[in-house]
């Protein structure tokens, strides 16, 4: 039997942001600003996603001279499929809740 996926709101927020522009590489600080997650929450999530092959991470030279290289992130094809599946599940759940309320 397969494991049930985790549905944490933080993961959903991060995946939603990464899903907005799936081909673009994003920096940690930019992800923090877009998701509203604290760095203490964001980085453990990025580590988990990367460990499980859902996130690509690589070093890029900084835009400004004299600055150190930065880590950038984007979803892998597997991560993209997973993020889409999560988004679809979340929208179904929201739809069902709204339907139940109406």
């Amino acid at each position: 039997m397969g494991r049930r996926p985790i549905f944490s709101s933080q993961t959903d927020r991060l995946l939603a942001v990464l899903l907005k522009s799936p081909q673009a590489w994003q920096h940690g600080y930019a992800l923090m600003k877009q998701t509203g997650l604290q760095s203490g929450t964001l980085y453990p999530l990025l580590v988990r996603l990367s460990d499980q092959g859902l996130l690509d991470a690589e070093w890029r030279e900084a835009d400004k001279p004299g600055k150190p290289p930065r880590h950038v992130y984007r979803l892998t094809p597997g991560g993209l499929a997973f993020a889409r599946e999560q988004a679809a599940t979340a929208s179904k759940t929201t739809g069902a809740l709204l339907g139940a309320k109406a």
Partner: protein
Amino acid sequence: MTEALRRRLAKKLMRHAACIMPAREKNWGEAMQNELQVIEDDQVALHWAFGCVIAGYTERLSALLQSWYGRSALACLIALLAVREFFAPLLIFAYRMQYLGLAHFLGLRTAGDDYRRLIPVMDATPAWLPVLWVAAGLLYLVALWRMLRRADGSAAPFFLGFALELVGIGAVQSVQAATGIIITPNPIVRAAGVALTLAAGLLLWWATRKRTFAAN
């Protein structure tokens, strides 16, 4: 706090965060540290650095609890908590069945070093209370077994056992009040026992929580 001081503190915190990251995640520590260089606002940088320290400790604790020595230490702690739950029922059983050698031996491990001090308490203890303690101990053992088998939901039986233990502590208070005998006179030792059990439960939850995102 001045801006320069904030920035210096943020840099120090970041170095600490990078240092405490587990060895296999050192590049993540470096990634967080380098990101600090592009944050221009010193207050935001300090906030970022605090978060990174939390991330560092989170990763360190996760790595520790996934290691064989971390899991072994936690397993020993849970086993000791289970043994502690069996202690009082065994002493009461030994006393009531007149196995006085065993009662004397166990009594040496109580405050006051003598089981006879506790006779009024044992006489006043209702029969269901030792059953409750044994059930709590068994639940701790179930949690331990599930943890060793890396099964999901290992913390649930542990916290159920802890709830029974708390009920037991409440019942013991009334027995102590009725007899006027305090089993463990030092309140710090009593509080430390509860705190240790709670800490073990939280570590168990942390060690066995799901870390997989995708269904596999």
